[in-house]
């Protein structure tokens, strides 16, 4: 893992000003283990259980990933499709978590998931173009199928950055690396308009 802690030897090699700067930068951008484990969501949903253990296809829930700009978070009715029957899993506490889905559904409220992957407003990203081009989900979302809570992988955070500076999440340079590698559009209007 490209831990931000690697910054420290690097910073000492620089002049005093830069050392202070990088230290401060690290304090801003470093990720605690807790954060790496992902935000606490309203329901302890586990991709590891659904995608790896039960081998449910990504597109079963994220139905629009291959035909719309948004992969879409499944409607609560989709969860209920299975969970009106499946009321308990193997992991401890799963029954309580599953019960939450039903209570959301019955109350007529949707589930207020926290957004992990977020793009700025000036970026027009389209899932379908990527899925149709055969880009695997993991290319951007990391080992999503193994995650309990979803987090942005350090891989997506620091990869290919000179100085290994931890970059902001989903940075353009990181997008462009792949676009150039795959021979995809390199024009600004592909994403910005």
């Amino acid at each position, binding site marked *: 893992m490209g831990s931000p802690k690697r910054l420290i030897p690097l910073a000492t090699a620089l002049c005093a000003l830069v050392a202070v*700067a990088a230290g401060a930068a690290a304090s801003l951008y470093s990720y605690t283990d807790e954060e790496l484990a992902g935000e606490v969501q309203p329901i302890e949903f586990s991709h590891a259980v659904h995608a790896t253990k039960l081998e449910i296809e990504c597109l079963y829930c994220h139905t*629009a990933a291959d035909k719309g700009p948004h992969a879409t978070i499944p*409607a609560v009715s989709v969860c209920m499709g299975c969970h009106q029957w499946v009321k308990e899993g193997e992991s401890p506490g799963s029954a309580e978590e599953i019960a939450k889905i039903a209570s959301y559904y019955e109350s007529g409220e949707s589930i207020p998931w926290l957004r992990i992957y977020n793009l700025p407003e000036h970026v027009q990203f389209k899932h379908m173009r990527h899925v149709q081009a055969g880009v695997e989900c993991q290319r951007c979302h990391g080992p999503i199928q193994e995650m309990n809570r979803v987090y942005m992988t350090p891989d997506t955070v620091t990869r290919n950055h000179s100085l290994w500076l931890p970059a902001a999440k989903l940075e353009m340079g990181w997008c462009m690396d792949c676009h150039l590698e795959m021979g995809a559009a390199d024009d600004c209007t592909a994403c*910005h308009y």
Partner: protein
Amino acid sequence: MPELDRRNFLKIAGLSAGAVATAACKEPVEKVIPYLNQPEEIIPGIPTHYASVCRECPAGCGIDVKTREGRPIKVDGLPADPTNGGVLCLRGQASLMRTYDAARFPGPMKRGDDGALAPISWDDALTELSARLQPLVGTGKIAFLGGLQTGVTDSIVDGFMKAAGSSNRVRYEVFGYEALRTANEKLFGRAAVPHFALDRADVVVAFGTDFLETWLNPAQNARLWAEGRKGGKSYAAYVGPRLGLSGSNADQWIAPEPGTEILIAAALAREVARRKGVSLGAAGNAIAKHSIADVAKATGIEAAVIEKLAGRIASAKSPVALPPGNELQTVNASGFAAAVQLLNVASGAIGRTVLFGPDHNLSRLDRFEDVKALAGKLRGGEVAVLLVHGSNPVYSASQTGFQDAMKTKGLYTVSFASSNDETTALADLVLPDHTPYEAWGDVEAVVGVHNLQQPTIRPLFDTRQTGDVLLDLGTRLGAGPEGSVQQKLRDHWGESFDTALGAGGSFSRVADSPVSFSGNAGGLSFDAAPIEGKGDLTLLVYPSASFGDGRSARIAMLQEIPNPVTKTVWASYAELHPDTAASLGVGLGDVVRVTTDTGEVELAVFPSEAQRPGTVAISAGQGHIPVDPSIEGQDPLQRRGTIGVNALALLPGRLDSASGALAWLSTRASVAATGEKRLVARTQTTFDQEGRGFAQSTTLAALAGGGHGEGHASSEEHGGEHQETPRWASASHLETVDFDPSKDARDPDYRWGMSIDVDACTGCGACTVACAVENNTPSPGEEAVRKGREMHWLRIERYVEHHGGEIESRSLPMLCQHCGAAPCEAVCPVFATYHSPEGLNVMVYNRCIGTRYCGNNCPYKARRFNYWPYDWFIREPEHLALNPDVTVRSKGVMEKCTFCVQRINAAKDTASAEKRKVRDGEVVSACQQACPTGAIVFGNYKDPESRVSVLRREDRAYWILHHLNTRPAVTYLKQISRRDEA
């Protein structure tokens, strides 16, 4: 160890500063909330289209509503609708904003003892109202005033009135075509409003007809007009004291003494009948006294001019004369309309270009005098409860004394308006209606054309559809039909309902039913109408293309659209001929007081050549009360204050006695300077091209003769008096040899470009509104426009050419030319604007640092700068109108036309999924889609067979400021002059 370059060093240094300050900050947590049950037809991020019908005016155009995640974001014409045929006027384009108006009533309101409106529940409101109605059932003391309603919607009102036991129902529209209906009844025995087939006409004579602004169906008229004019066909003359949008598009302007226009029509009818040997019977005798010589004397128009026009009509294959619009509605409006129809009889137009049968359903309307009678009943205590829906008589029929009548003691008034207006401000109870985008309904604007209206958004406020409320009230009264509007529609349409809903309705072509000319004019007079009152000038009140009868004036986007003739925005102006202005000692921006016998207003002067000397013209539709009385002064975008003056209130209320119509052209006005001066907010400061050849023109003769050789390289001279070739164009060293826009892009497949036909463009502004809606451009308001800070990406420039004493207007849509060698790109210090491989001149908002160098260097003034954070001024729920596919720009960012790159990308998405290239015609820019005349074509120059490529090779093709070597991607096609060669 990685290299530490300057850029990264600065990054770290910058971070450290930021980090110290914000070490504790984290990105804000956003939520992503899925559907509870996802509707099957919705894929988030992909638009869903619904067919419906526009209710902004009685024309009832079929519309295609583009929705995203359950909210309409764009409206266009429904191609299946045979009337508008896929196009929509600017008001229809902007009508969406009515739904997202922050000033709408949040729910039912009741006027308290203090005179202020306070919220009340629907249940309480309806209980109270039905309690008031109950004892009145059968007494005839319940009155309903509404606009034009047709189909099931109309029968629901009828059902309610039946339950209420009253026949006091008035259907009133400001544009009521009373005179035409009366004239047709007298001449042909049918009080109908026929179809005028402009597409078939080779000579059009309009008598003050605003066929491109409000008259009948302006979108349809424009479409047919362009069809008829294609390729230099058709000649048009306009008779009237002022050139509006319609008049500006005519080839000849005849401006008789105001009030005597009828004589021209009569003289033409008489002369054409004589030449063609058509007998006009007794009516012919009635106009026999109007010989050309006498009429010439009375009108001040040379006999030769009338004679020549008569000859033109007589020798035309299918001429049409258009009856007067409201602008020329005199106290003898019926006689005038009859004279025009006599001309149509004489020229053989009836049954050929004037088609009875597929009539406009306007003959169901009542007349202005009926509103006057209703006001009398209110005052006389004959009405105890008045229900007002879709009508604003206090504003538009102030001559009836409706304002005082509403205040009659013991009268209880209910308004169904969705936001405050003059009539609602006097109502005791407000039961806000859904906006048309939230409601069910149906329209049969033209016989045989049944449009279905379906909701495309869940109601944003606690409103109820008036039809449903009436059904509920009827039930409470114990006699009305039960159910809901939706149910009634379903019952009425039966099994075909679902199919019709998908198609937008059912459209059948009604065959023309021949009418026979009765041969007499039924006692109508063909004399000139008097212009009375104190003052030296004739007051011309003209219908506005943007505001209609005033109901669209609330929409900020339409206030931002320049008046097509004066190019002024956000205000009313007293338009005076420059000579008249000079004689009064006033000029541009001088505030004058315009006084008639009924009222006076103060407004700034706009000198305009497009009208007869001795007249003062003011646009109708402005001068509303503030929509929210609690807001003091004007808010940043001036949406709630009073804008301009209400010109209709200056009319003294004389009627055309035969038809009961209000005479708009009937009074004199005095104009006096006040000594004050106001800044004028306008988007264009000169109509002179100064020899730069922006809007070029050619003649049919030149096209026929010069098709070879020289081609489009130079433009011709007009009658030797005006040199149109740009002065610098002869500097051949500046000319780009073999200019080929497809070479200005390195992409192998695409070079996007556009073609604009100046001959087809009428200057209506539908494209500008479509662009603003599609691209989230703000309406920054009057103050901003005064400083030249309007934000439209696409504007219509108007240029005036002088031919002796005559003027010729040309409309020129101007937008970013996506130059192959763009001057803006070279000067951007941060590469925020650059040339894309597909030839687009791209603006990357998030790179822009706001130096405005690019705007400075653009010779087309196509770039717009966000001087203020206009996005901050968006109030809830206005933000729902934003197109999510286009970034909302913020303060300090430059923006401009993108050639609708979001639509290009959407087309590429489809093409890529189908593993093919984008086809010609697949990308349709918003302006192209809106253009009623098909003047705009978008496409790919790399495809030699694409429409843009073909048009580029036309003889009429030219490029604006081409000599600057900008290599523009927009090809303009010259206007074809149909003027007589001198």
